[in-house]
């Protein structure tokens, strides 16, 4: 039989799991859908417009920057779509369209591609873009920009009001005019497009955990620790629930802090990272001048990830015993 040069030769293994990068990103997109639907209910069709503009800008920015840098195209992995959705979800529905485009360029070109593309950026692109927008256009991103409805309905014009996180403080507790816990849970309140509905975000999170796309460690430790600290700080279950359900905690803990590239790989590392996120979030919310601290805390912890990973390297097989023996020897 002559088959020379026809057979494919490659390194083992010769079978691979069915999972692909694109499949994982598709799962994240699916998990983000409920929050998108909720946003249209709360903020009207403009929310959809912002999401669409953000996604298209991100994909285009990725396409063009890869082209300009003469690298192979990566838009097929859908990660730019995910970044686009996440960016939109972190913006108020009143933001001018051109600012969305600007944010998308910052996220994809500056944060992601200039560092080498997917897997290489050291901070979360959508979050950094949001922070750049807050700093560059404070008026557009501050309390006055958030349109809320405070009622279940299609009220597109709504009322301009503070985000729920401006309506709670350590000194006064939950202030008058603050949305009820039920409103926060369902999402009929003011805030960024994708952050308002805790229910929708939780659905997405559960989907991601069931599909094994993310490990439950980061969201559970992050949200759990914030809950615990707030309970101690306020001494009141309602205030604790208000802090957990309101603002960007849910979207941050479930979708932003779990970004593969900018969170630790090891389980131990994930615990430390999530604890750090929770602590900083609470510090900012309780004592800082900003009402909200989720984005900043995640960015800060992003930067620490390489160090956390160094501290939490898994113990290589067969080396545990030696360490123990050494300890025992030292103890003797």
């Amino acid at each position, binding site marked *: 039989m002559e088959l020379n040069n026809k057979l494919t*030769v490659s390194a083992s293994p*010769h079978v691979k799991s069915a999972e692909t990068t694109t499949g994982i990103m598709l799962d994240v997109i699916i998990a983000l859908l409920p929050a998108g639907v909720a946003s249209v209910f709360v903020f009207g069709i403009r929310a959809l417009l912002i999401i669409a503009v953000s996604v298209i800008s991100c994909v285009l920015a990725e396409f063009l920057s890869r082209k300009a840098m003469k690298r192979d195209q990566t838009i097929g992995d859908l990660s730019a779509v995910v970044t686009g959705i996440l960016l939109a979800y972190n913006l108020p529905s009143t933001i001018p369209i051109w600012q969305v485009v600007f944010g998308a360029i910052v996220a994809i070109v500056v944060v992601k591609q200039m560092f080498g593309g997917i897997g290489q950026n050291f901070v979360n692109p959508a979050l950094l873009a949001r922070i750049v927008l807050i700093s560059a256009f404070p008026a557009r991103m501050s309390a006055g920009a958030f349109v809320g409805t405070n009622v279940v309905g299609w009220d597109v014009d709504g009322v301009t009001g503070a985000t729920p996180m401006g309506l709670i403080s350590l000194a006064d507790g939950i202030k008058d005019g603050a949305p009820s816990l039920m409103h926060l849970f369902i999402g009929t309140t003011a805030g960024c497009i994708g952050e308002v509905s805790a229910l929708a975000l939780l659905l997405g999170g559960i989907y991601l955990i069931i599909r094994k796309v993310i490990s439950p460690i980061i969201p559970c430790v992050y949200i759990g620790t914030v809950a615990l600290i707030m309970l101690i700080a306020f001494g009141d279950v309602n205030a604790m629930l208000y802090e957990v359900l309101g603002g960007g905690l849910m979207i941050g803990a479930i979708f932003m802090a779990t970004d593969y590239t900018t969170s630790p790989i090891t389980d131990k590392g994930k615990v430390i990272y999530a604890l750090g996120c929770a602590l900083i979030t609470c510090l900012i919310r309780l004592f800082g001048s900003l009402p909200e601290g989720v984005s900043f805390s995640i960015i800060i912890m992003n930067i620490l990830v390489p160090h956390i990973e160094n501290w939490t390297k898994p113990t290589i097989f*067969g080396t545990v015993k030696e360490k123990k023996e050494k300890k025992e020897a030292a103890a003797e």
Partner: protein
Amino acid sequence: MANEKIEGVLKPVMKGHGGIHVSHNKNTSKCAIVRMPAPAKVVLPMQQHIGAPCTPTVAVGDEVKIGQVIGDTDAFVSTPVHATVSGKVTAVGPVKVANGSMVQAVTIESDGKMELSEDIKPPKIDTKDDFLKAVRASGLVGLGGAGFPTHVKLAFKEDSGVDTLIINAAECEPFITVDHRECIDNSWDVLSGVYTVKEILGFKNVYIAIEDNKSDAFTELMKVAADNADWDDSVKLVMLPSQYPQGAEKVLIQSVTGRQVPPGKLPSDVGVVVMNVQSISFLGRYLKTGKPLVSRSLTVDGSAIAEPKNIRVPIGTLISDIIEFCGGFKAEPYKVIGGGPMMGMALYDINVPLLKNNNAVLAFSADTIKVKPERACIRCGRCVQACPMSLMPTKIETRAHLKDVEGCQAAGAMTCMECGSCAFACPSGRPLVQYMRLAKAVIREGSAK
């Protein structure tokens, strides 16, 4: 039936980190081992083992019979090579083998008679030394894959603390079922081999470890053991979960005994010797008949093979002849693998001889082998989760590309056993095993300087 409880069968004492679930595809588990008739010729490389190569002891034109030594050396870490068919030596010289390298080999044209050499007689064994000499003379190497000479493995010192023998019948590689069949078709050979080796070498504990997807292997071995007076409590069956790579030596030892072999150490350092079930079964037969290692069993399967089978063939038979015996190709082969799909080697050519340690030939057509496009690492951590050695394959890859000798070393690249779990799990299709090999090469080069 997986996970079925069988009376008297032990469970693993420890569950290690990592591992993956890969479809078993044990299509041939009901195919009893059949003998392949004598091939027209066999090619017998002088190096089919880890250690010193043999020197041919025959010349072109010599008439040889089955079991006659045709290559040997004085080196201890080596095993002789025997004629596997009767006939005439037609060539002595370098040939290409499966891994692409050129090796000295003896080619024998078969006379079709398959005559046994008159010299074959059961070895006389009075002492441990006699036994080890006999094992060396049998030409036995680990039949499970590595090809390490068995007599070297068994030559541990009395005071070295080795007390446990594990018979590896886990067979965690997909598709392969010969070890499973060996337990059923030759169960008495397996058990008699176990008893003899245990007695001669004085093992305190003997475990026969099998994955839980082979429950008939357990029942068969239990039945045969029950009929035999020699069966005692120190020989135990262990039912392992069907999870890859359960049969990898270090993983197996951990599951069965709870002991971990440290990096760079051998199983004997933690008091354990592991033998493949085929090796022990061969020893069982050899000690009775004296017939050296001239044939072996293997699984032939895959989407491109017309008639998948478990077969017993003379060593040195060309892979192309083996495939022909199994009905040839029913689809155009895209990849032919010597060994299992997780750790086997892709063959560039099928006109190469079957070696002592080759336990399968698998052939796949293009539409049945998934090729994942290679994309950038997304740091998802799946490779880290999958690694049974608790390494961080993605980190080792980065270090390897940077040619960072110390980084590769510190990350434990040398502990990698190339099981392929990481590369299997990677959603970005990264050829991580290839990069682990690169990291090892970086370390080797670095320490050579």
